[in-house]
């Protein structure tokens, strides 16, 4: 997928002035947050399970080479194939060559962010193979030729009326007088249309929420059942998975599953959790004859052993973006690539470079809600700070900002100078703003005062007041 992350500011500006988007984003605020709180409250062990889930992934990442080898051996033993791919390009080619070997014309797909990451649909289309997205949200954005704006609710930016218009535009063979004003009618229509596509498809492609080393199994978690029809009906099932999806055992998978749906949609468990091991067995009456796993690195192995390793614990639940004030305001498309919100702000620079995506870790208020709700306890704000530091070190911040930060650092590192300078500045501001209590305009702070007043300080610094209080405390004792 072509990134527009470098244009975050323009993207965000446009988003803030898009009334349809702003209306749709209201559903994020109301749809996810309360449900997660209730689901967590119903399970007294929820926080302990989060600790264990984190520990499972930490252990797995520390032994990733061995777990991947064990996983691969088991897949092969079960009659499946593993295609190791270092880059997005290799992964696209691997999928294409499997499709070609089966003379595939259409491919059905379950929702997969990795497939977006490697721009798989575009590649298949360019080579004469039609990809059909079957998750309702993915289907809607495929019709709209848009990227997803949320990792678990890819069409969260679209309103019902827009879906109706898209269905009328594309489903031309259905009677134009049909009613599509209710969500249920839209769901029904998609069900009908896609049912035919499942039956025609030659290959089914799904992502994976987990790969289990013990059994050589891939796991998908869905609510619609589209992933199951996608992987059961065609001749071949291709799984696209990145290498950090591996977990050791079924037991470990169960522990993480207990925090996944609760954090994502506030469900206790998603409707369908499906474990796939190899192709159909000779005696099976249905199921795919071939089973392929595309095992993709695409930059992840170089995150190991760095300050960004913790990001590889991410299970893509979307809780961080559901709770992010910046995401709520600007929507997922503003982030300009596959992964939006706080997890995207950390992961995107790792995968496509901080030169392209440096704005994302800066688009945070550091309110800390993302880290507070992350089931895998990923320190997202800390990692955004690491990216800001790297950006600074690599001289990518604008010259004016660099100068200001360097000047501040110079002063801040010298306590006496700092106290003297701040008391001077605060004293002056306090005197100047005493009458109105705020400033309409302030030199060097035009970016702030263009949109709001700057409150006048009291005239004395916190440190000065603290020191005085300590003195008074001692005197009165």
């Amino acid at each position, binding site marked *: 997928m072509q990134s527009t992350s470098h244009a975050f500011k323009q993207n965000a500006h446009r988003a803030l002035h898009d009334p349809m988007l702003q209306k749709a984003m209201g559903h994020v605020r*109301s749809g*996810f947050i309360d449900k997660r709180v209730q689901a967590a409250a119903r*399970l007294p062990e929820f926080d302990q399970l989060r600790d*264990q889930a984190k520990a499972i992934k930490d252990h797995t990442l*520390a032994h*990733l*080479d*061995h777990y*991947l*080898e*064990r996983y691969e051996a088991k897949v092969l*033993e*079960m009659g499946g194939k593993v295609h190791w*791919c270092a880059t997005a390009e290799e992964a696209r080619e691997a999928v294409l060559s499997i499709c070609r070997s089966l003379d595939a014309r259409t491919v059905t797909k379950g929702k997969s962010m990795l497939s977006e990451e490697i721009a798989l649909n575009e590649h298949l289309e360019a080579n004469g193979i039609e990809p059909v997205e*079957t998750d*309702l949200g993915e289907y*809607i954005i495929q019709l709209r030729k848009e990227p997803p704006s949320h990792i678990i*609710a890819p*069409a969260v930016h679209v309103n*019902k009326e827009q*879906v109706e218009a898209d269905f009328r535009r594309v489903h031309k063979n259905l009677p134009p007088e049909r009613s599509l004003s209710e969500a249920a009618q839209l769901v*029904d229509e998609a069900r009908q249309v*896609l049912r035919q596509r499942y*039956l025609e498809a030659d290959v089914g492609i799904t992502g994976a929420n987990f790969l289990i*080393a*013990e*059994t050589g199994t891939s796991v998908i978690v869905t*609510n*619609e*059942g*589209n992933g199951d*029809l996608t992987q*059961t009906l065609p001749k071949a099932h291709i799984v696209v998975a990145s*290498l950090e999806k591996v977990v*050791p055992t079924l*037991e*470990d998978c*169960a*522990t993480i599953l207990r925090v996944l749906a609760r954090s994502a949609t506030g*469900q206790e*468990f*998603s*409707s369908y*959790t*499906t*474990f*796939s*091991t*190899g192709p*159909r067995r000779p*005696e*099976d*009456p*249905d*199921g795919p004859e071939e089973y392929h796993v595309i095992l993709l*690195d695409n930059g992840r*192995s*170089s*995150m*190991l052993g760095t300050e960004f390793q913790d990001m590889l614990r991410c299970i893509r639940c979307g809780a961080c973006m559901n709770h992010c004030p910046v995401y709520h305001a600007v929507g997922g498309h503003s982030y300009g690539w596959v992964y939006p919100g706080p997890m995207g702000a950390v992961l995107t620079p790792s995968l496509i470079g901080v030169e392209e995506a440096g704005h994302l870790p800066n688009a945070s208020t550091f309110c800390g809600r993302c880290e507070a709700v992350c089931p895998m306890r990923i320190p997202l704000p800390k990692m955004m700070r690491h990216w800001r530091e790297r950006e600074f070190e690599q001289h990518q911040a604008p010259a004016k900002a660099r100068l200001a930060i360097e000047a501040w650092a110079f002063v801040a590192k010298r306590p006496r100078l700092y106290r003297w300078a701040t008391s001077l500045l605060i004293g002056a501001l306090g005197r100047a703003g005493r009458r109105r209590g705020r400033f309409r305009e302030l030199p060097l702070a035009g970016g702030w005062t263009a949109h709001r007043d700057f409150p006048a300080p009291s005239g004395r610094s916190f440190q000065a007041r603290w020191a005085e209080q300590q003195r008074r405390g001692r005197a009165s004792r």
Partner: protein
Amino acid sequence: MSSRKAILGAIRHSLGRQRGDGAEQAVEARLRTHDRNLVPQRGCLEGEALLSLFSSQAERIDATVERVATDAEVPEAVAEYLKRNNLPPRVRMAPHPDIQALPWAEKAPLLEVAEGRADPQDLVSVTPAFAAVAETGTLVLHSGPQTPTTLNFLPENHVVVVRASQVVGAYEEVWDRLRAANPAALPRTVNMITGPSRTGDIEQRLELGAHGPRRLHIVLIAEEGDS
């Protein structure tokens, strides 16, 4: 250099892997013992309490549960269910001995019964379950010659026959039973099914019946005092 070698090499380099650092043995041991992590208290129940937790959890997520006392009551329960929902008296059944052994002809003579994998036209399927998990009202089914996976997803109505002895508290108990029943390898597909198909993709409002079954009906065979 193959991508496999390059990727594994990059991982080993990043992790600072040393020969003889014990990592391989640690992995070996973990896979062999597959120890349980924390199992929530919720599912640690027995007898009637376990069955009623399973039922109430399944109903919370829009499945319907009907309890019968004996095998002989199942065919009638299924026929009645079809009638209640205005469905034609026709089902596609899993070719599984537990389902075949039920007295269909005797107790539900008007019901037309076909066997095998699902056809796109089938409206109702009847399948057994491998297990049921009380903690979230989850059914566990798996593929095999007697249990085609298409039956779980293609028809709009899915009727699952569960025995009280199949109901367990937590997922971990299912893993033990799966390993015991399939020592060589897991079946091709293991489905954990928790309620009927649903979507929230249009304005985050819940709609049932997105692609899989619109209705999930569970017939639980449990005599009084059975567990």
